[in-house]
């Protein structure tokens, strides 16, 4: 399996959300995704980046193209050292929000991608890995 160099965006300011989704879209285009999947990927990244911006003191989003014999895709990794998520099944429910948002972010990301893993430890932070495959 060969992997391109990883590209990361540190999320500190609000504009970093835009930077992350623009870079993600570029990587997705390079990986060969069509326009609809590019939009899905950019949207998923926007949700993950905004959550870092809103709920943590900082974190980053990293992308890489996965290119192996059978499949090509993009991996998106969101890492923060924020407060962590205590009840993961709760935040994965549509409509659950602690910020007056739509609560569509995390359950939405899960539907936008093909693989979704979330790991979180209270007081330590959260790590979310999402993968989308080129069809």
């Amino acid at each position: 399996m060969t992997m391109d160099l990883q590209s990361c965006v540190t999320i500190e300011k609000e504009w970093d959300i835009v930077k992350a989704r623009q870079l993600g879209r570029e990587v997705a285009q390079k990986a060969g995704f069509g326009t609809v999947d590019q939009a899905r990927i950019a949207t998923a990244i926007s949700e993950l980046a905004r959550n870092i911006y809103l709920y943590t003191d900082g974190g980053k989003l990293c992308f890489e193209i996965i290119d192996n014999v059978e499949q090509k895709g993009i991996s998106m990794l969101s890492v923060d050292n924020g407060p962590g998520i205590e009840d993961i099944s709760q935040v994965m429910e549509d409509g659950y929000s602690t910020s007056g948002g739509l609560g569509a972010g995390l359950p939405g990301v899960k539907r936008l991608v093909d693989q979704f893993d979330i790991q979180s430890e209270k007081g330590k932070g959260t790590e979310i890995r999402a993968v989308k495959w080129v069809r």
Partner: protein
Amino acid sequence: MRIPILKLHNYLLISIQVEMDDNTAIQFQEDLLDKIHQTGASGVVIDLTSVEIIDSFIAKVLGDVVKMSDLMGAKVVLTGIQPAVAVTLIDLGIHLQDVPTALNLEQGLIKLRQELGE
């Protein structure tokens, strides 16, 4: 960054041409409500033809803008939502059910006239 709002008779027309960050979206919400108040506009068309991504935050701002304008007495129609954006909105579980939409600006103006019974 500010999104320009044009006045045409008693309608307001907006074409969103910039990459919308959260601040721009919130600023736009305020500017539009102010403009409705100042002009007494009865209808608003927001054209999204150039918008390549609508995430949950921007969707919330747009949905709120429609409701707030409605409270003030102005009908809003959203036009030109790209196919890829429509798909991602549904994936996000956002249906914008009560929001009038149309294919393009021209259809949007026709829809406004119908909604307003003009």
